């Protein structure tokens, strides 16, 4: 047994009081609290989505006021993007990365705990503000001048600014912590070229947040100053001032979409070989492709601004860079598929989530390629096509990936296995529901249905109704997951041997010790 002991054993030795949890700097406990907090925000964002889709299920339905609708789509996007999708993989990484590299804890355990509390408290600021009626309504992107004091009076937008600032600060510092941990705290003979792919994925993710996060931090401070101190940083009368917020926001938020997806690359790379009994086709290709996506991810933020009227050179560059990033992404997908071709696929719950992740992410990438084509983007920008694209990327990129990881590593972490039957039910409900919800949005977008509108004419009723039905199916499946976790923890049928069957996990996806044969 390693000097650190088992994960579950460390829990027992460190006590079970609330105080021991709240003050813990143990990476497993902090990571567990982190995942729990981000899942809480996921459910809150999901609740907002239910309200939105319920409002839109029937034309003319008005159980929400227009202000309520704006507040709820802001809450949905903010919770899902900033407080679930971006930070959740740091929670998984906190549990897994130190163990995978032979470290007993993160390089800076107190910093790890601090980052968790920043994310938790940042989200709670927004929730409490909502409860007191001070609600931001400018959307999760909060473009200026809509989000400035003239068009968003009151304190709602200020709460949004500080909630996101605190969360982004936590993410940036977590990026530094993970980078230092991975680069410095590896056990002596573990070279970089033998790291588990998930660790590589977390390294690239950490670099993204470390470098891009401060751009959003600066932009948020600028917004606070413009709203409260009368500065002119986002002066709308200046052409470039009007676009400055978008420029700074997307310079962070586009890499943030890779923060939401790259860890899932690592998770999928570790799950697929396990349940196909076939090694990853090429470890090097996966790592280099992920590195290429990380690097290119800093160059493509202009594709969010293709319709702003900026110079053609920038638009062309944005389009070309967006198409270029499809090359390493496609390489990754084919690498995974080639690895499966000679294997014996066993459709466990984690494997189902991992396989569906590949399919859904490919659809999201494909419809994104269309949007990178400037004339097409002029047609579909700010329509439901965009909503479909971002949800196929983010919902599959993050949600399917995180559930794959939870089902896969739950037994390793806690010595109990989530119920496979409920897991399959959760998966199929999610998979069918998300396609029912987001695929029709392509057609809505092509029909010109704008996003973020409070109501619509009867011509789009059928598709909106279908979307609402899919949403409720996803919600029900999410409750099945919650039930699965609660029932499993309640009964705690202890698993001694690896429930997924014997496997040399580290041989299938990297992590070899120096000098050992595959």
């Amino acid at each position, binding site marked *: 047994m*390693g000097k650190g002991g088992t994960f579950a054993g460390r829990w027992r030795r460190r006590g079970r009081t609330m105080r021991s949890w709240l*003050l813990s700097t143990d990476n497993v406990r902090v990571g567990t609290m982190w995942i729990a907090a981000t899942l809480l925000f996921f459910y809150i964002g999901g609740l907002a989505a239910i309200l939105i889709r319920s409002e839109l299920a029937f034309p003319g339905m008005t159980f929400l006021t227009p202000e309520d609708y704006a507040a709820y789509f802001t809450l949905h996007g903010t919770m899902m993007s900033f407080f679930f999708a971006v930070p959740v993989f740091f929670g998984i990484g906190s549990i897994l990365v130190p163990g995978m590299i032979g470290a007993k804890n993160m390089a800076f355990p107190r910093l790890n705990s601090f980052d968790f509390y920043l994310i938790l408290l940042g989200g709670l*600021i927004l929730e409490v503000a909502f409860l007191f009626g001070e609600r931001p309504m400018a959307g999760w992107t909060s473009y200026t001048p809509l989000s400035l004091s003239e068009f968003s009076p009151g304190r709602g937008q200020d709460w949004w600014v*500080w909630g996101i600032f605190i969360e982004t600060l936590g993410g940036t510092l977590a990026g530094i912590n993970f980078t230092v941990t991975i680069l*410095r705290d590896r056990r002596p003979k573990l070279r970089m070229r033998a790291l588990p792919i998930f660790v590589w994925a977390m390294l690239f993710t950490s670099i993204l947040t470390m470098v891009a996060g401060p751009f959003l*931090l600066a932009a948020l401070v600028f917004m606070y100053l413009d709203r409260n101190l009368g500065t002119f940083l986002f002066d709308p009368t200046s052409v470039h001032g009007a676009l*400055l917020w978008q420029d700074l926001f997307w310079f962070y938020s586009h890499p943030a979409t890779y923060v939401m997806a790259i860890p899932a690359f690592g998770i999928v790379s570790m799950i697929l070989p396990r349940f196909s009994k076939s090694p990853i086709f090429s470890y090097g290709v996966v790592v280099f492709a992920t590195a290429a996506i990380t690097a290119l991810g800093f160059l493509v933020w202009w594709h969010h601004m293709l319709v702003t009227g900026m110079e053609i050179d920038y638009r062309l560059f944005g389009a070309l860079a967006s198409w270029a990033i499809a090359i390493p992404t496609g390489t990754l997908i084919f690498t995974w598929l080639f690895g499966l071709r000679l294997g014996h696929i066993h459709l466990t719950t984690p494997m189902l989530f991992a396989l569906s992740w590949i399919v859904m992410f490919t659809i999201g990438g494909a419809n994104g390629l269309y949007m990178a084509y400037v004339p097409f983007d002029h047609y579909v920008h700010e329509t439901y096509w965009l909503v479909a694209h971002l949800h196929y990327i983010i919902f599959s990129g993050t949600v399917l990936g995180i559930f794959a990881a939870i089902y896969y*590593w739950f037994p390793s972490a806690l010595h109990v296995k989530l119920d496979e039957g409920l897991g399959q039910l959760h998966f199929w409900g999610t998979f069918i529901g998300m396609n029912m919800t987001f695929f029709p949005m392509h057609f809505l977008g092509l029909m010109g249905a704008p996003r973020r509108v409070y109501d619509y004419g009867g011509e789009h009723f059928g598709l909106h109704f279908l979307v609402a039905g899919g949403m409720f199916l996803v919600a029900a499946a999410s409750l099945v997951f919650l039930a699965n976790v609660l029932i499993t923890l309640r009964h705690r049928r202890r698993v001694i*041997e690896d429930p997924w069957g014997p496997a040399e996990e580290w041989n299938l996806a990297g992590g070899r010790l120096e000098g050992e044969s595959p």
Partner: protein
Amino acid sequence: MSRAGETPLEAVHMTGPQPHTLEGSVWPLVAAVGLVLLAVGLTISMVLAAIGVLVLLGSAWGAAREVNPPGGAAEAGPLVVRSDDPDFWRRRPKQFWLGAGMSISSATLLAAVYRAWAAHGLFHPGEWPDAAPTLHSPLTLAATLAIGASLVCAFLGTRAFRQGTRRPALLWLAGSLALGAAFLAALMLDWARVVATGFGPTHGPAGSGYVVLMGYHALTVGGGLMMLGVLTWHAFGERLGARRNSVFTGMLVYWTFAAAAWLLTYVVVHLRLVVWGGRFLI
């Protein structure tokens, strides 16, 4: 491969010498609460913001005490890593990497501020309002010299600790702290001069951009001073010393960045020595 009761993950990875794992710490939670109080205070009440700052400072203090228990000066710790060591970079103290990481993040934050300048055309001649005062002044020159001198003192203090000469090390560190504070004071006085000419934060994009740029540097240096102050106090209190000095390495990395960032701003903004379209603008 797996031993009884051990999962495959742990069997492979939880081996070899491990650093000590903490039992728990209250300071991360306190620091987070302090930051939230600061943010909430900036929205509803400056008194609350001030309390938040105090809580933050207190948490930094407490965490530094926790990391460096009494008698730390005499404890064994990592000394200089030889440059010909094949594991040179991996054996650098982790505080070095922390300082490097914070510097990288601060650099991109500065890049965002400069992006704002570029968006408003403030790097172009003729975009500055006629009423803009001369930004270069004896105070900005004094501030530049002060932070340069502070960096030199910090470097000499760190080296003195490594060499085991405690008293000179403490004097150099105190000098670095004092010069850093002088930098901030000079910056504040100069900004007061600029605002008195009517070129304040509400004076259009140029005035707003200038106050943000100066504010960024003040925060960067202020944060560094806070770190340096805590470390210096602990050094005086014999919690840090010759054999426990890795944390100064990280501080030095960050202080080098802060000085370099200010030098860039001084050249580009105050001296306006920018090569733009093939011309130097003075």
